[in-house]
């Protein structure tokens, strides 16, 4: 990936370099400032929030009262559990199903490999449409069930293609020797192939996890019961639509200002991604490129 410094090409002039640095700095600031503002406001003291009329960029002191009321067992706590459940269970199921399919498709000489591969590839060309998809989910009885957030989006054809490309690049000799030693497909897959694929498994796993954590569309479409809402729907209702969160929803008497509660909900939904981001980042360029090049 890294570009070597090209010999014989003159270094750009100083004004040019300063100009580039400046442009880049502005871009990065535009990305970072919203996050800083949100995190600061969520921990800022009430007085400062009221004075500033909304967002705070630098809190004068730090208090966690907004978080205390969020985690007191009300709407947000429940949504957090739903989101965590959907993300963990969904990611595990997605990874299992995708890896099994990708491994079968990567095996040379698998008699049904070609038709199944075509089924996978063609599904990437079109999307089924909102209405028929809704009716299908309704038809299999998933409406108003937490599984509606997992099952319809459990497998992504793109991720299967990336995994397959990775499995196909593993040296053939390794699986062959396992076979000669008497290992069946399941043994070869779980003891030889999977341990060699940790890098791609972590990338694809994290892609799935981010998708589950961020899922808003399926929740909006399939869930009427607000008890099943994941974090993203709570975020929409109480932050974007600005519905007031009272003590009934929060399950606590003590009420910090709306602004800091709203910002705390935002932070709660951002932080998990910020935590996995460094791990994700190490591998993702490679993972994305395998998919793009080999697809």
């Amino acid at each position: 990936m890294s570009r070597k410094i090209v010999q014989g090409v003159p270094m750009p002039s100083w004004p040019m370099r300063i100009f580039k640095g400046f442009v880049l700095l502005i871009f990065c600031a535009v990305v970072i400032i919203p996050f800083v503002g949100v995190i600061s406001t969520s921990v800022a003291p009430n007085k400062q929030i009221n004075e500033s009329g909304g967002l705070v960029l630098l809190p004068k002191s730090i208090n966690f009262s907004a978080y205390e009321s969020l985690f007191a067992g009300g709407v947000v706590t429940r949504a957090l559990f739903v989101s965590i459940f959907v993300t963990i269970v969904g990611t595990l199921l997605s990874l299992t199903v995708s890896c099994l399919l990708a491994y079968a498709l990567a095996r040379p000489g698998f008699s049904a490999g070609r038709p199944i591969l075509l089924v996978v590839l063609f599904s990437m060309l079109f999307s089924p449409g909102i209405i028929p998809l809704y009716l299908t989910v309704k038809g299999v009885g998933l409406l108003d069930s937490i599984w509606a957030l997992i099952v319809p989006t459990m497998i992504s054809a793109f991720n299967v293609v990336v995994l397959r490309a990775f499995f196909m690049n593993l040296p053939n000799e390794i699986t062959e020797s396992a076979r000669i030693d008497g290992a069946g497909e399941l043994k070869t897959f779980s003891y030889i192939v999977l341990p060699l694929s940790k890098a791609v498994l972590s990338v694809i796993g994290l892609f799935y996890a981010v998708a589950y954590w961020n899922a808003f569309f399926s929740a909006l479409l399939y869930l009427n019961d607000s008890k099943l809402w994941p974090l993203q729907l709570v975020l929409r209702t109480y932050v974007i639509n600005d519905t007031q969160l009272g003590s009934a929803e929060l399950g606590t008497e003590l009420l910090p200002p709306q602004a800091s509660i709203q910002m705390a909900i935002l932070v709660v939904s951002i932080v998990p991604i910020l935590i996995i981001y460094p791990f994700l980042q190490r591998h993702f360029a490679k993972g994305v490129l395998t998919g793009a090049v080999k697809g």
Partner: protein
Amino acid sequence: MLQRSSKHPQQRLTLGQRLLRDRVLLLFALPGTALIIAFHYVPLLGNVIAFKDYQPFLGIGASDWSGWANFSVIFNGDPAFLRALKNTLILTGLQSVFVFPAPILLALLLNSLFSERIKRIAQSILYLPHFMSWVIVVALFQQMLGGSGLLNNYLRSHDLTTIDIIGNSELFHVLLTSQIIWKDTGWATILFLAALSQIDSQLYEAASVDGASRMKQLWHVTLPGLRGIIILLFILRLGDSLTVGFEQIILQQQAVGRDVSEVLDTYVYNNGVLGGAWGVAAAVGLVKGIVGVILVLTANKVAHMFGEQGVYQR
């Protein structure tokens, strides 16, 4: 015997025997394939309700056929449908002009940096918004640009006129476009940076020996090196051109009203899932899907005519 069977191991087996031999692999492939068929191909069949007078309590099978009646909103140019189509096309246009080239420019900027370290730090920052959900992005924009947002607070405290950007129907299309740029420009540079790193450095050396300035090198070496990937991504983009951000728009529809915010996808959702006009909504969705596939196929053909690889061969 052993030699012969290892040379042509498959010739002696019938299809049934081969499938029996591969039963473990078939079992491996089963759950994933079943899910793709159930949630991608079966709904495709569900599109028949576009030709039916669908009654939820009767089910798809028992509902009456209605011929092309559901398509009349399209053929007769129903105002609500035309409004959705118009907004979709405006947004597609804005995205092609502003969203599409943005990552190319940013990738060129990142690629021209001489410090690997600065480049890497900038990349980690610029990729981040891609991993945020639309709900978070919309909420962040509200906090920054809304009535009591950071921008207006600043303007107010300096006695300047405040501007209402969120909830302003005139600026809505611009707002949507800038949200997409904020969210995905950094991430989209990945592919362009990879393509840039593939360009042979000898081409640059040769060009500079021939006396080409840096601008000339950009024009004659860098941009031709990016041509393949730019065309490929543009074709893929074309296939999605009638899909302009369902989540992003539905989140903000309340604030500005349907006049400027209704697009084909929200039309389908609002009329079908919320309004109960299942058949009409399915008809619009079906036409949209078909047009999308036709656009990809056509664009691919055009790419081949220009000698480019396109999405798939031939």
